[in-house]
């Protein structure tokens, strides 16, 4: 499995899509000047921009790499040569997942360092009255990374059943978009004001979807990082537990489906 992780990383680093997406990180260089346009709150803005940019790059990477890695193995018929080696399909899948995870961690570390340098530059040019809480920034980055690792799990699960890249890519994007709103929709449906508007059937449907779809709202600590608000550690603990459980279920499901998959 270690070798599969290695192969996955090599594959990503030698891939054009990766190189293109990483080229986006050049945008970081513009953050100080872009942030300075706001005149006030330069530091806050540079933090916001950095975190959003990192989030965006990680989203692209996790959707495209997650959705295409298994799909491409099958499409290009690499699976015939690789899955006929004495590698179990579950280990292969897990190796792929770990490789992608490791890659996301490396990327977010790299981008995180880049972002910190830029934030430092911005704040030294236009000092802010609020001190930057670096530990919160790191925590935010950590949870952002976890969020996208979970998304890779969604992409892998979808690609084990799909014969085209359409379902994994768009399915993952949809899951991502939905994951941002499920919390709000759920809370709305159960709020007193919605009592008369929402039929019980829809209520049930929303509840089912709420538990079925990933809920990624807990992973967003941007506000804490920007305004230096201390994090709620019990909440974070719950989020980590949710991450572990949800990812494990995703991978377990993916392994079952991949084991049954026929290589035609």
């Amino acid at each position, binding site marked *: 499995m270690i*070798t599969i992780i290695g*192969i996955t990383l*090599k*594959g990503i680093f*030698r*891939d054009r899509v990766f190189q293109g997406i990483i080229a986006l990180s050049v945008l970081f260089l513009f953050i100080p000047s872009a942030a300075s346009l706001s005149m006030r709150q330069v530091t806050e803005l540079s933090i916001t921009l950095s975190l959003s940019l990192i989030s965006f790059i990680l989203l692209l990477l996790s959707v495209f790499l997650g959705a295409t890695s298994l799909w491409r193995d099958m499409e*290009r*018929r*690499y*699976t*015939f*040569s*690789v*899955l*006929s*080696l*004495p*590698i*179990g399909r579950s280990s292969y899948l897990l190796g792929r997942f770990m490789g992608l995870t490791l890659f996301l961690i490396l990327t977010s570390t790299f981008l995180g360092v880049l972002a910190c340098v830029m934030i430092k530059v911005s704040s030294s040019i236009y000092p802010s009255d609020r001190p930057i809480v670096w530990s919160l920034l790191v925590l935010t980055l950590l949870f952002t990374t976890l969020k996208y690792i979970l998304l890779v799990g969604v992409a892998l699960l979808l690609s084990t059943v799909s014969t085209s890249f359409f379902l994994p890519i768009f399915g993952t994007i949809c899951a991502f978009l939905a994951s941002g709103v499920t919390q709000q929709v759920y809370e709305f449906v159960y709020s007193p004001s919605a009592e008369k508007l929402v039929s019980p059937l829809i209520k049930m449907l929303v509840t089912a979807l709420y538990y079925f779809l990933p809920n990624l709202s807990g992973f967003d600590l941007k506000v804490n990082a920007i305004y230096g608000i201390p994090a709620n550690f019990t909440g974070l603990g719950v989020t980590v537990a949710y991450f572990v459980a949800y990812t494990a279920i995703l991978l377990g499901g993916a392994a079952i489906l991949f084991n*049954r998959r*026929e*290589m*035609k």
Partner: protein
Amino acid sequence: MNAIEIIGLCKNFTGKRMTKIEALKGLNLEVARGEVFGFLGPNGAGKSTTIKLLMGLLKPTTGLSRIMGVESSQTLSRTNVGFLPENPAFYDYLSAEEYIKFVGSQFGMEANLLATRTEEVLKRMDLWEARKRHMRGYSKGMVQRVGLAQTLVHDPDVYVLDEPMSGLDPIGRALVKDIILDLKKQGKCVFFSTHITDDVEKVCDRVGVINNGQLLVVDSVTNILQRGIEGYSVLTISPEGVQEENYVGKDELQFFIQRSLQNNQSIEKIESRSKDMEAFFLEIVAR
């Protein structure tokens, strides 16, 4: 224990509009250790389907297959096999050397041994010069050579090759024949599919002919060639020194020899005239 056992193997595919395609209809076959077995059949006969089932890439509809006694559904069944897929494709962002080493490590080979074996097989397959280049830039025949190299690197006892000669130039084809004969000498089992009858005649111990998902004949190559004898060409020289070539029917050889001797003709050469494997194959498939 047989190297390969296939018992009542059936495979149905669902085609367009849910039509059922019976690719394999109850295949039974055993291939012994140390045997070179040629799996002969026209396009669409079910050769690749059988091989994919054997390697656990497909799941049988009914029946089962075993390699070295272990059922194909288990990962363990593949620990002693070198497999070459049909028109193989390998991670094209790796070089041949990286890929061969990757394969060797999957079989748990120790690093030093792997390095020497990798060099050996790459040189043997004439890929040594190209070993550092990414496979993306390889020609079809070069990829096929990588495919053969990766079956050889870990020195397994069983080889399953789906059309090993396809895409290769005459030199490459001769090389593959040599390799198979070499493996035979080492007592390895080679199971390979092909539609080229000539390959079978040269290297196989036994042949199976498959068509429409059914195994039609399984027999040894010597038997088939023996059975195919149709007659003889006999070169005689008369007392006056005149050479004559005669065609003699299968059952008339004894009679012809006696008569020649009575006529004081000396017999210079007798050659059997036989139908070759190709004619045999065409006859079986047409039936």
